[in-house]
């Protein structure tokens, strides 16, 4: 881990001091609650994007009623310009939050994201803070076809200057949103499309989960499965099945990819000696590739078998359901990878 990717807080306890709750809500509503809390605590937080007043995906729904149309503002379909406008607005004191709506729409705005938002502070020798959140629904949603199924987090991990958040549970979605808005840097927040309608325990009161702290979602002793975004609940389900086959799987959710909590991952791999990394993205240069490389470089001697990456074929995501299924990660892919690490 380089010092530029150190966790934001030295937090050994990932769970904030919030009483357990029976209250359940949807992932997308949890994001909205995180945003609502951020807007309540700081008048300079504004939300912009296409149709954020009615919010097609749902993360900004209802905010306009509480915060008004100056703070919840629809933009023209001009991704490059509104992504870049947030840089100037943040430089003079606003804390903009932007709904990009679909992950691949980042590509329309890549100069403003990668050359401007990510680099202005660095290029100026640290003169300016740019507290901006760019959030979007992302990833395959079922026949979205190639331009509405992308997961651009691997290439954005390579930009330098963006923090990247990718929660897997409603609880994490709310707490990470509040931290993302409070962060003095540009943060890209990915909401996996298929998780939006999942439900989980979410306390009503605001709470923050620090960026850069992974969460062990399930304890195990034989194999560490690091899973990202939508693949976390699937890894957990498979882990429960594999338990019956006598394989004890530990599931680690990084929650943020930049900063990346390698300490938690390495601690787990040191215990199990085996590693599978599941990434909801194309294989080449995926987050899975990066995590495996870091583990092999730093902890080769603890490995009992070759680490495995599970990711998409290096193809665009096709439309037709059987074609799409062929390209994306299947449950069998994950299960087979786990068993491969056990066979050596």
């Amino acid at each position, binding site marked *: 881990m380089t010092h530029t990717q150190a966790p934001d807080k030295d937090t050994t306890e990932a769970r904030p001091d919030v009483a357990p709750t029976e209250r359940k809500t949807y992932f997308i509503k949890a994001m909205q609650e995180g945003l609502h809390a951020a807007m309540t605590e700081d008048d300079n937080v*504004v939300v912009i994007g296409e149709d954020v007043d009615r919010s097609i995906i749902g993360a900004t729904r209802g905010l306009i009623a509480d915060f008004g149309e100056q703070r919840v503002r629809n933009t023209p379909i001009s991704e490059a310009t509104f992504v870049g406008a947030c840089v100037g607005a943040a430089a003079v004191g606003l804390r903009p939050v932007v709904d990009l709506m679909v992950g691949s729409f980042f590509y329309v705005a890549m100069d403003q994201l990668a*050359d401007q938002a990510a680099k202005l502070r660095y290029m100026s020798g640290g003169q300016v803070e740019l507290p901006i959140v760019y959030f979007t629904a992302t990833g395959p949603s079922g026949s979205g076809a190639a331009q509405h199924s992308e997961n651009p987090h691997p290439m954005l991990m390579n930009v330098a200057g963006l923090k990247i958040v990718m929660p897997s549970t409603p609880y994490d979605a709310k707490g990470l949103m509040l931290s993302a808005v409070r962060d*003095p840097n540009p943060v890209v927040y990915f909401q996996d499309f298929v998780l939006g309608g999942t439900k989980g325990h979410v306390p009503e009161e605001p709470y923050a989960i620090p960026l850069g702290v992974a969460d062990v979602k399930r304890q195990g002793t034989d194999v560490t499965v690091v899973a990202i975004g939508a693949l976390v609940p699937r890894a957990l389900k498979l882990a429960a099945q594999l338990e019956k086959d006598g394989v004890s799987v530990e599931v680690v959710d990084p929650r943020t990819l930049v900063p990346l909590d390698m300490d938690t991952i390495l601690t787990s791999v040191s215990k199990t000696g085996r590693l599978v990394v599941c990434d909801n993205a194309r294989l080449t240069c995926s987050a899975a590739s990066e995590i495996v490389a870091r583990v092999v470089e730093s902890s080769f001697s603890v490995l009992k078998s070759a680490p495995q990456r599970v990711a998409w074929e290096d193809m665009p995501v096709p439309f037709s359901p059987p074609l799409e299924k062929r390209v994306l990660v299947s449950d069998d892919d994950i299960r087979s990878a786990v068993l491969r690490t056990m066979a050596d």
Partner: protein
Amino acid sequence: MTQTAAIDAAATSPEEHLDMLRTMIRIRRFEERVAALFKRGELPGFVHLYLGEEAVATGVCSALRPDDRITSTHRGHGHVIAKGAGVDRMMAELFGRVDGYCRGKGGSMHTVDFSLGIIGTNGIVGGGIPIGTGSAWGDKHLGRDNVTVVFFGDGASNQGVFFESMNLAQIWKLPVIFVCENNGYTEWTATEKLTAGRIADRGTPMGIPGEQVDGNDVLAVREVVERAVSRARSGDGPSLIEALTYRWHGHNEGEEAFAGDYRPEEEQQSWRTREPIKAYATRLIDGGLLDQEGWDRIDTEETDAVEAAVAFAKASPFPDPEEALDHLYAPIATGDAR
């Protein structure tokens, strides 16, 4: 578009006139020195010089308050000087030294001082246009009356973000002034071969007032910008100004090694006869605000200041290599455990 108008002492005080002249001379001497340093191989990287265009930055920034904002371009030395940057820290930045504005991280294309209202200079053509539109949005939202000037070139006028940003600025009535410096060449190709119609007219369909101005006439530039500033401050939204000027040097220094001859000699000569600084000085002399002695004094002072800046830059150490790993992320405030 002529430079015959008499000096209007009521609109601009004698001190302001002499300040503007001084700024133009400062830019000129700075850029001449940078050209020589580059030729001798003393500067890392590459530079795009503002020689010949001094009246635009000076006229524009003279119409702004210190707390107003600008965004600048790859050809930004003139803008940054006109907005108040010191030539010593600028020169140190060009040398990649620790006393540069960006501690050596930015260089020629990214020299910036946010405390002077400079919201970035940019190595991407058109890259600053959305950013300046955004600072205008931020200021307006926060209830301030600052305006932002977005500097860009004729080349950037063909970027999509220019049209997008004009649209956003107009629907949100943002206090932003789009100032296009049309210096005749988009990199190495004549602008008219690449650019349809008049750039000044490009905001017209959106209802944005556009004006062409002689970019070599500092007072004409100042006057048109003052009108746009007044519109912006009173909530009437954006304006577009196209300043017609000419780039004396190449797109970047050292281009003769690869670019060949692409600008007719007579064209270059004709623009040199419309030299912006001497023309202004002559008007000031005619108006009784300047004499030869006054000119000599200002020129000597600014030339000396640039020499001192070179000495300052050369005396400044390079940053510790480990600083390359600093400044990527702003630290989270300690105790911020809300």
